[in-house]
């Protein structure tokens, strides 16, 4: 039962002077199967999205001998995130922020174009619930059969059915949890470990958690998640505008509703008769149990199944389809006033703004991703002491460098200090070449912390001044380099 129906029922109770219950008892929904255009779209999305989710961990991507060969991998132990050709280090977490911004703007854009596209077609809650409902129908039959069986006493056949349904649900849920952990370790290896009971305990714990959430949310909570737990419908309600497409019922065409016989009678008598035959098919197929004829409402996820159901009925009774369809609020109002519907405007300032913002954020991310340097360095001047006087009067400053080698092979970097006359650079246990550059090997895909000491001889010391020093790290084979400017303090 939809929230709206519940409220109307409560209002009726109040009118009749009866007590209104404080809490809404949930009523099981038995959605009926339906065929049609939107059902086919939903099937396609279901297979594609679940296919990606379940099989993506097994996709391989060659990154060289020692690097992981999994296309999508969150390597928590080594703090790396791999996504095909992209490798993200913890300090580049801003890419994740960029992705979240893109996700938010995409949601806004979808919402501005056609309302709850996310809820109706793409949300994991919708997709898995759809899958679980398919299993339920396959085992227990369609709406009428399920409703009937729910009232009958338990029989052996019934117990078998219930067991089979829950077993299949649990298998799907278990596979869902299993696929999840595969994103965090080498998938083929982990699968073998898991089935031979050699996996890490944390892997089993996460599988158990996700098995439970999938089974519980898709098997039992279903539309309650969308109506009462999810914040998006509330945010969405605040973002919607009169030009966005939404699943709507055409009051002007449908009302007054009535059975075929009744409407024929009305027509004969010259009164207005609507096209809606009040067959309730739109309500029966609805996975959240709303009546679309009550208008736009919070628990409608706009999956379009009522459109399919209504179109099928309209075709059968020989009336034009489209009694329920995607339409804008502005047209709903215009039609009620008897005005002609306006053409759909997808390109509006709002959608352009969202698209431009998506393009800007995406563009910045792509640009920084493509111009990332494979050599990086940061330098931190010693806080204490700022400078050190040596016995011969020369002055030394210490810097802590972080050298980053983002390639999958070990490389040797040359580190030099430039811009100071006669300056020498040295570091404990690190050799120098003839040009007084430190020769530093950095392991593949690693960060090396290195404390270097830069010394200026006494005759070049200018007391009371701080000079600029440029620390340069050079990868001699590719010629890639990075520099950091810092102070050189003197007494």
């Amino acid at each position, binding site marked *: 039962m939809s*929230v709206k129906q*519940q*409220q*109307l029922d*409560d*209002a009726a*109770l*109040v*009118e009749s002077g009866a007590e*209104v*219950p*404080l*809490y*809404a*008892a*949930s009523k099981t929904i038995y959605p009926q199967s339906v065929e049609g255009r939107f059902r086919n779209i939903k099937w396609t999305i279901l297979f594609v999205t679940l296919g990606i989710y379940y099989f993506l961990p097994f996709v391989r991507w060659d990154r060289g001998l020692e690097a992981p060969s999994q296309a999508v991998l969150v390597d928590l132990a080594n703090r790396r995130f791999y996504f095909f050709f992209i490798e993200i280090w913890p300090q580049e977490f801003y890419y994740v922020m960029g992705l979240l911004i893109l996700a938010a703007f995409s949601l806004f854009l979808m919402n501005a174009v056609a309302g709850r596209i996310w809820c109706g077609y793409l949300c994991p809650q919708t997709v898995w619930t759809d899958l679980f409902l398919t299993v339920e129908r396959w085992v227990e039959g369609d709406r009428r059969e399920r409703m009937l069986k729910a009232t009958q006493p338990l029989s052996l056949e019934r117990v078998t059915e219930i067991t089979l349904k829950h077993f299949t649900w649990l298998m799907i849920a278990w596979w869902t949890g299993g696929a999840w952990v595969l994103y965090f370790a080498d998938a083929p290896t982990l699968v073998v470990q898991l089935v031979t009971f050699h996996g890490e305990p944390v892997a089993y714990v996460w599988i158990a958690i996700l098995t439970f959430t999938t089974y519980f949310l898709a098997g039992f909570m279903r539309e*309650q998640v969308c*109506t*009462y737990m999810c914040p998006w419908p509330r945010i969405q309600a605040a973002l919607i505008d009169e030009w966005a497409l939404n699943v709507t019922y055409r009051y002007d065409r449908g009302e007054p509703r009535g059975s075929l016989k009744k409407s024929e009678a009305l027509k004969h008598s010259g009164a207005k008769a609507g096209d809606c035959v009040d067959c309730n098919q739109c309500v029966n197929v609805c996975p959240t149990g709303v009546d679309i004829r009550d208008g736009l409402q919070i628990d409608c996820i706009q999956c379009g199944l009522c459109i399919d159901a209504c179109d099928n009925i309209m075709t059968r009774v020989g009336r034009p389809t489209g009694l329920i369809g995607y339409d804008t609020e502005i047209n709903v109002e215009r039609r009620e006033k008897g005005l002609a519907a306006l053409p759909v405007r997808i390109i509006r300032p709002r959608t352009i703004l969202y698209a431009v913002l998506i393009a800007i954020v995406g563009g910045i991310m792509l640009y920084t991703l493509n111009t990332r340097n494979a050599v990086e360095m940061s330098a931190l001047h*010693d*806080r*204490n*002491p*700022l400078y*050190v*006087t*040596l*016995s*011969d*009067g020369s002055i*030394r400053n*210490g810097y802590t460098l972080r050298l980053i080698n983002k390639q999958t092979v070990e490389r040797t970097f040359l580190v030099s200090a430039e811009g100071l006359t006669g300056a020498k650079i040295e570091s*404990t*246990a690190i050799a120098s070449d003839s040009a007084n550059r430190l020769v530093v090997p950095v392991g593949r895909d690693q960060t090396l912390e290195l*404390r270097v*000491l830069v010394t200026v001889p*006494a005759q070049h010391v200018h007391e009371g001044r701080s000079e600029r020093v440029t620390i340069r790290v050079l990868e001699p084979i590719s010629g890639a380099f990075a520099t950091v400017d810092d102070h050189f303090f003197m007494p």
Partner: protein
Amino acid sequence: MTLETDKSGHVDHAHVDSHTGMATTGHEWDGIRELNTPLPRWWLTILYMTIVWAFFYCIAYPAIPLFQTFTKGVLGWSARGSVNEEVAELRAQRGPMVAALSNASLKGIEQTPQLRNFAIAQGKAAFGDNCAPCHGAGGGGSKGFANLNDDDWLWGGTLEQISATLTHGIRAGDDLGHLGAMPAFGRDGILKANEISVVADYVRSLSGLPVTTGADLKTGAKVFAENCAVCHADNGKGNMELGAPNLTDAIWLYGPEKATIVEGLTNGRGGVMPAWAGRLDATTIKALTVYVHTLGGGK
């Protein structure tokens, strides 16, 4: 529709809101009434479950403050205990490295990158806890407290010498520690004020610092040879055995100003560094030695 009201004029029971067609809860605040949007029953159930959970939680975990103490909970869990467990875990994790550190020689530690990095990390932490109050966070020192980053060492800058200084301290009452001190030439009447003044000028001249105009450096040299050379050597280059600093270089523990030198000559110098043998374990002292040695001035 007329609404039934109580004595104070408030609506006291639910009615149907004429604008939305929805029932109200019957609550009213300053004429604003609340529409009834009932929650599902499972939501209420969860609320009750959290209350039950809280009840058992209070029994299981520390929860209720009493006058002098608090209820400890039947599970015996405590925040401190949990920290201790984690510290013990960390110790166990570091065990092999700590053992390797205690078995290796100082030189061996410094030459093995893995051991060196571990020793420097451990040393840095121990330095912050124990040494930084006097020597500064980075070992930069201050007046009277040696800078550990430079190449000038009062008692020697090799690994063994640093280790010995750390273990036994300086003038800290340890028989094996460093004992030498600068005598109070002025206070004890060994040198007169004018002799102190000229020897101070002479000492400044040793490292090329400007001296008082017309200073009698010849007398200064004589006083130096008779009184100071015994520890600081004839050429003023000092003696590490006695902790006598090199007076010819650019580094001054207390400062190069004439007044400071005169003060030292008059009242003597004898700063103290604690003997760490009884306070820190041998492995920590090893780690500290390697850390100090790699600060930049190690010999």
